[in-house]
């Protein structure tokens, strides 16, 4: 890309103005540059309106005087202590969210990789059908799907009874209102976000590379780790990001499938905002969550070294 862009204008001037190449500036090149920036405008405007402005307002809210109220309004006092206060009050749900998000992402990766691998290499003519099946749950709303898990995992339901019969669960054991249900719900809800990018990466792999690996005496396991896995890394990275980020911030699963002892940071922000009307604390916690996720993602992407993502 870079090299052709650099060469093209030269070639053009060579053709049109062979006698005086030096005193004519490359007009098409400059024009192209300007058009490039113009084309960026809609995207930048979108970012400005839907990211920069809300983020600015969120940042401002997080620094309001915490003694304000809806009646009196909020004064801007640059009250940085808001951050320290919410960290002290809510570090537990914050850590729990990161932990549940990481667990759900790990389960999604294991389940999703197997599934995507099967679809890409083994599905044959069923490939499209299987992809549709992966997306099919999206035809029902997120909320309805999570609520159905409440029925499936109910205390007197088939699943719990079977597990009790097999002595996996004690007689008064249960699944609902436990961390198991919350992590399972997260895994279930975000699995398609893992499968699709993984499939896109795996499907692109040239089958001849895998053949070449076995020609060079790599057994299937070595072949997988030397060829397939490295080539699927872009899918792994984007899949884990697409799963981890929303699942850390999710609160529907914790609220519907968990108990008060499984509450995640999303619930805390939501209740600070709607129940307590404590906007400064809600804002500060949101900024903290955002900062943690951005930092983790940056470190992760650096370590993973997949440049296709940046």
């Amino acid at each position, binding site marked *: *890309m*870079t*090299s052709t862009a650099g060469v093209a204008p030269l070639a053009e001037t060579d053709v049109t103005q062979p006698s005086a190449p030096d005193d004519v500036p490359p007009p098409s090149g400059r024009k192209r540059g300007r058009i490039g920036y113009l084309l960026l405008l809609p995207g930048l405007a979108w970012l400005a309106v839907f990211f*920069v402005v809300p983020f*600015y307002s969120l*940042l*401002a*809210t997080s*620094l*309001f*005087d915490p*003694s*304000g*109220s*809806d*009646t*009196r*309004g*909020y*004064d*801007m006092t*640059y009250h940085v202590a808001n951050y320290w206060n919410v960290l002290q*009050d809510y570090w537990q749900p914050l850590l729990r969210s990161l932990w549940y998000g990481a667990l759900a992402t790990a389960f999604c990766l294991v389940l999703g990789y197997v599934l995507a691998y099967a679809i890409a290499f083994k599905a044959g003519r069923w490939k499209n059908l299987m992809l549709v099946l992966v997306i099919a749950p999206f035809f029902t709303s997120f909320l309805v799907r999570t609520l159905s898990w*409440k*029925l499936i995992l*109910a*205390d*007197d339901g088939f699943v719990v009874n079977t597990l009790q019969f097999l002595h996996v669960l004690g007689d008064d054991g*249960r699944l*609902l*209102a436990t961390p198991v249900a919350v992590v399972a719900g997260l895994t279930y809800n975000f699995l398609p976000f893992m499968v699709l990018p993984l499939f896109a990466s795996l499907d692109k792999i040239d089958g001849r*590379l895998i053949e*070449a690996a076995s020609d060079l005496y790599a057994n299937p396991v070595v072949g997988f780790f030397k060829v397939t896995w490295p080539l699927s890394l872009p899918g792994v990275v984007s899949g884990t990001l697409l799963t981890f980020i929303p699942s850390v911030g999710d609160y529907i699963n*914790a*609220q519907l499938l968990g*108990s*008060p*002892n*499984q*509450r995640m940071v999303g*619930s*805390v922000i*939501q*209740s*600070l*905002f*709607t*129940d*307590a*009307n*404590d906007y400064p*604390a809600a804002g500060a916690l949101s900024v903290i969550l955002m900062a943690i996720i951005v930092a983790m993602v940056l470190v992760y992407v650096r370590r993973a070294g997949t*440049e296709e993502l*940046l």
Partner: protein
Amino acid sequence: MVTVATGDSRRVQHGPSTTRRALLRGGGAAAFVGVSAAALKLPFFGVEGARVEAASCVGTDVSASQKELVISNWPAYIDPRRKKTSTSAVFTAQTGITVDYTDDVNDNAEFYAKVKNQLGSCQPVGRDIMVLTDWMAARMIDLGWIQELDLAEIPDVTANVIEPLRGLSWDPDFRHHVPWQTGLTGIAYNADAVGEVGSFEELLTRADLKGRISLLTEMRDTMGFMLKLTGADPAEFTDDQWGTALDELRKVVAAGQVRAFTGNEYIQDLAAGNIVACEAWSGDVIQAQFDNPAIKFVTPEEGLMLWSDNMLVPNGATHQANAEAWMNYYYDPVVAAKLAAWVNYICPVQGAQAEMEKIDPSLVDNPLIFPDDATLAATMSFMPLDEEQITRYEGAFADVTGG
């Protein structure tokens, strides 16, 4: 061979683009940090209060030319409207006013958040009537968000409201609110699964109920009981007493006694057997009893919380006269009895009890629909809170319940 070749070509071909990418990446990060830092220096503005002057935000009433009415209410709070004989259909037939009725109020706090920005700046919310619980109604009236009613247009209301709902401190003579339904908060349990749960104390401590009860997310309901349980009066308590009551609740939650804090959905959990007892609203339990007679409602030893849901006309509403016609219509005892027979909450209309005889005699003597003096004597109400207390108490409560 292969790896070496790709490695090489990569270095050669992608070399320049990588540096440019790194440059972009660095630039992006610097810009982000820069914007964030600049944001700290840029002028941040505070937010003005949401209190408005009600008189200056009144919508123009076009009721005479537009026979329409937009209502937001709680789910399952009106008899099925499609039937030709339903209270709502008869209203339309009598007055020619078409009713756009939505059951989009699920939670007082959530609804408040939904309308706050508009009502706080004198903008209409596109509704003519919204139904909110007493404490939220009081808060909105105080913020100046509610239009004043024309008492001459609602004579049946002022004549027929039952005695316990009259003379409330926040709006004593119905200038801003008209009760829709009222109800009691007590305990429900499944008699097939567990023995009678007679008090809140039992609900929170009995070993056979561990992890199988739920409490309500309505702070005033749950904390009303907690305050009573710890020896305070919910109608008048101090910060210390509040703290003691909340600590008690925190202990109960930490012990794993409480499975969930819920809104209306506890009734499904009770029916599904996920919980065996819970804090419950009277009308829900009566409705559930039609399907499962084993579900019982108890008046706890500590008492019952009494609350009401009220019709309010928000600022900017353009069909106030139609709204008043609707309010007056539902205070006809015949209509009120028909509604109560379906909704099963306490009917706020005098004379409806006599009318109920003709509709469903089995409900006439139900103290949860037409409360007798003994039931009313057991009721408690929650102290009115100011804005600062609301933020502090709701926040502390939400920390314990997990929102």
